[in-house]
């Protein structure tokens, strides 16, 4: 697991042997969590930083009306709450979508590391900055794109993110999301989500079968939704040659 964390961070920043040693000493707790379970709730003190090793999770809030708003989908390799570990309490919830393998990294361990290891700190910044960039793009998505484009855009984004961590092959990836999950992150009704998925299927752009999504024509779907991958910073780094993370495949393979 420590090796996995090192590889994840090294995909953003070159780390020294000393950095490796410090990360190896983290000894995070690993656990399996079932689907639709909260990892941490709004109001909780964030004592651990959660790292998703396998499965899908989301960041969400419940409005007084009971309406859920999903602000992020978290895929393997994503830190759930890197951005809040220095805060006193969670201002939102993090819950699993599918069954997940999660690493709990103690908050104080991050404090110690970031005080004396600038490369690790910089790698953590990378993670946080990309999370922010994704959030910005979601704002653009919700505020500026039509319903069918929004959903198509999300499908393209998930493909890129999952490909980057070795969780997609032949433009196919696991799709454990319910229509209500998509609706709640896109600010749409389930009816609109259903219609859009039907439309994308009838256009021959996607197939959704046995909780697995295949994009038949990625370029066409990108054009349809106005998708540009720049905000994911996948091939934009100085360490781009290191940006494949086979550790995730190993972690998922057992």
């Amino acid at each position, binding site marked *: 697991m420590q090796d996995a964390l090192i590889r994840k961070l090294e995909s953003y920043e070159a780390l020294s042997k000393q950095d490796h040693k410090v990360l190896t000493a983290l000894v995070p707790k690993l656990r399996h969590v079932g689907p639709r379970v909260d990892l941490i709730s709004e109001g909780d003190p964030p004592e651990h930083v959660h790292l998703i090793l396998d499965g899908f999770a989301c960041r969400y809030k419940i409005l007084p009306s009971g309406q859920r708003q999903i602000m992020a989908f978290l895929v393997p390799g994503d830190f759930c709450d890197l951005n809040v570990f220095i805060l006193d309490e969670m201002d939102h919830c993090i819950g699993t979508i599918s069954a997940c393998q999660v690493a709990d990294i103690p908050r104080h361990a991050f404090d110690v590391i970031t005080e004396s290891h600038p490369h690790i700190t910089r790698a953590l910044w990378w993670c946080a900055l990309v999370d922010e960039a994704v959030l910005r793009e979601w704002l653009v998505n919700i505020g500026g794109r039509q319903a069918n484009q929004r959903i198509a855009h999300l499908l393209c984004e998930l493909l890129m993110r999952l490909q980057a961590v070795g969780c997609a092959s032949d433009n196919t990836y696991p799709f454990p999301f319910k229509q209500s999950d998509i*609706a709640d992150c896109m600010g749409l009704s*389930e*009816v609109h989500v*259903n*219609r859009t998925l*039907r*439309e994308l299927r009838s256009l021959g752009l996607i197939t959704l079968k046995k909780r697995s999504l295949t994009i038949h024509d990625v370029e066409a779907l990108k054009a349809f939704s106005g998708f540009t991958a720049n905000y994911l910073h996948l091939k934009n780094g100085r360490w781009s040659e290191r940006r494949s993370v086979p550790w995730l495949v190993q972690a998922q393979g057992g």
Partner: protein
Amino acid sequence: MTKRHNVETLVVLQPIAVDTDSSDREGMLVIANGMLVAVLVQLNDPEETRPGSWFMEAGFGRLRDMRLQPFDTLDDATRWVRQQMKLLAG
């Protein structure tokens, strides 16, 4: 449709075809006390979880931007609209 008493909202449904960019096109204008407040559309796709139910495709005024589950019947929809109008008036 008649008013039961003075505060009851008069809700009238008027059939209309709606372009939803899908096969759902049978719609109803929902007129409350003479004002258009919503457009309902009947879901007819067999893949839809509740085919035959009525979805609020658009809401106006205080019903704007409300994300609702479809109503089983037009009566349910009408009852809900009347309740909303009562809530808003109160």
